[in-house]
């Protein structure tokens, strides 16, 4: 593995009681790419992201993000996180939610908050309470909360769940623009057409990394026409 990796994890094990959620996993993510964690529900994607963020600690193994050992408080101010749940305060407005997270990250300024809300195309509803928004709009606000402090690394846990195809395409276009700006993105998904848009993919199954590479490489290695087929072949091996 190259030493200038944005994320480097070695021998990761995470147990919850008798359940082994992550089982001896090694991972390397290059900077400025979108790395997709692909796997079915319960494969360990969310646990892996929480480990990489330092929200939970591994039972075994080590993680280095941007050269710093996780968990690291300085690192957290440079990372953005969009959890699977919306993680918004429903009784606050869009602006109040985004401002709150900006303040937590010590990055608050009214123009920056406004700009971030515009970025996710929510300027017209900036003063609306989140509880009055549609599911797709809430997802956009949730993304704005993860982006407001201009993170250099972004963790997205199934960011397009319940989002219509048009908005999903907008999200992915935006992720690509962030990549161009040098932001490294780790995204959990089990949607195959989204996985195709990732720079590299890691196929997770029962807490293990089955295979790793670009979508084309994975298809070729498995001798499969689609990623879904490739995934099924890898998991049956």
């Amino acid at each position: 593995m190259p030493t200038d990796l944005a994320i480097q994890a070695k021998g990761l094990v995470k147990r919850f009681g008798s359940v082994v959620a992550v089982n001896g996993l090694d991972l390397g993510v290059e900077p400025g790419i979108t790395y997709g964690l692909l796997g079915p529900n319960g494969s360990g994607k969310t646990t892996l992201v929480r480990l990489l963020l330092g929200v939970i600690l591994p039972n075994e193994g080590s993680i280095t993000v941007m050269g710093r050992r996780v968990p690291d408080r300085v690192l957290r101010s440079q990372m953005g996180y969009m959890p699977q749940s919306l993680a918004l305060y429903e009784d606050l407005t869009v602006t109040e939610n985004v401002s709150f997270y900006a303040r937590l990250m010590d990055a608050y300024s009214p123009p920056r908050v406004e700009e971030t809300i515009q970025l996710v195309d929510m300027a017209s509803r900036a003063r609306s309470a989140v509880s009055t928004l549609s599911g797709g709009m809430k997802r956009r606000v949730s993304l704005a909360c993860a982006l407001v402090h201009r993170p250099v690394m972004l963790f997205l846990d199934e960011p397009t769940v319940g989002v219509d195809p048009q908005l999903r395409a907008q999200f992915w276009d935006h992720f690509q623009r962030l990549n161009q700006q040098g932001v490294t993105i780790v995204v959990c998904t089990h949607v195959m057409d989204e996985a195709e848009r990732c720079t590299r993919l890691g196929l997770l199954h029962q807490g293990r990394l089955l295979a790793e590479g670009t979508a084309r490489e994975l298809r070729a290695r498995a001798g499969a026409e689609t990623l879904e087929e490739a995934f099924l072949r890898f998991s049956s091996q």
Partner: protein
Amino acid sequence: MSHQRGNTEKRSMNPKRIAAIALRIALQFRRDHRTLALIILAPIVVLSLLAYLINLRGSPMTVGLAMEDASPPVERFSQELRRLPLFNVRDVARDQVEGLVRSGEMEAAVIIPQGYALRLAGQPGPDLEVVVDGSRSRTAPVVLQGLAQVSLRLAAAQSGAALSEPKVTYVYAGPQYKALDYFAPTFIAFFAFFFVYLLTAIGFLRERAYGTLERLAASPLTKAEIVLGYMLGFGLFAMAQAAVILFFTVYIIGIHYSGNLLIVFLIVAVLTLGAVNMGIFLSTFARTELQAVQFIPLVITPQGLLAGIFWPIPDMHIVFQGIAHLLPLTYANFALQEVMVKGKGVLDASVAADLGALLLFAAIQVALASIGLRRATT
């Protein structure tokens, strides 16, 4: 016709559908062991406590007796007084009386002045003197009731001797204090504790349920910062609430008080620190808002019953006295009574000790809240 039938069908009750709802609720309860346990445990705990407290017999009141007249009629008077089950009579000297009542060593004292035998014989003479701790609502009425009983017994025995109206001196508070004046300080503490606990527990539970706690855990926030932020946010509202309760009780209801209201705020503030952190800690054991509310009969009700608001703690069994001294509301109640009824300051030893106990409780709750936070985020 078919349209009519359609309407009838819509409105008719289907027992199967009703049973389906009832069955679903039963299934949910069966799997929610915590709720089931609380449904059974909470009424048993609360009813047992109530049954015990309602049947509680008051312990005899310690009353000093300063005898300055040793004549036989006065001796009989003192013997009758000592015979009353209401009192535990201790002999004292006149110059000790105020100090002993002020320190709380005795609730009241009766001074029988020189020449009182004349009064007992129905002739002009000095009045009986009574010194009472007015900070306790029961003291003056019970002492006067006891003296009236003595008078009646003597009157029956001697045919004619009647007790003159004693001269009553109050060490604290005074005859103008009514029952509400004694209860008001405890209400301030109870409401502050109850609402702050409830708001924090539910607020924090929502933080977990909506996933915002997860995002906070991924931010540079430390656990101490989260706890302090919650304390500050809810503490401000608790202070506002205390101000409303104080304003209403003092200026609208018109209760009597004799201390510095700023000290009352200080006591409520320290109590609130504990309540916020207890709310955070206990909310980590609840999965739903219903479960957080269900802690009330186990956490709040016993405090209301055992904190000395309705029943004096010294009258309780030693076990309940021990429990009462573990409860923050007991110390808040003591401190607020000392300040609002006795007019004591923050430097007074008893107020300082109560504040210290509240601070210790808050510190323990901060530690527990931090552990709870770790549990909730991992």
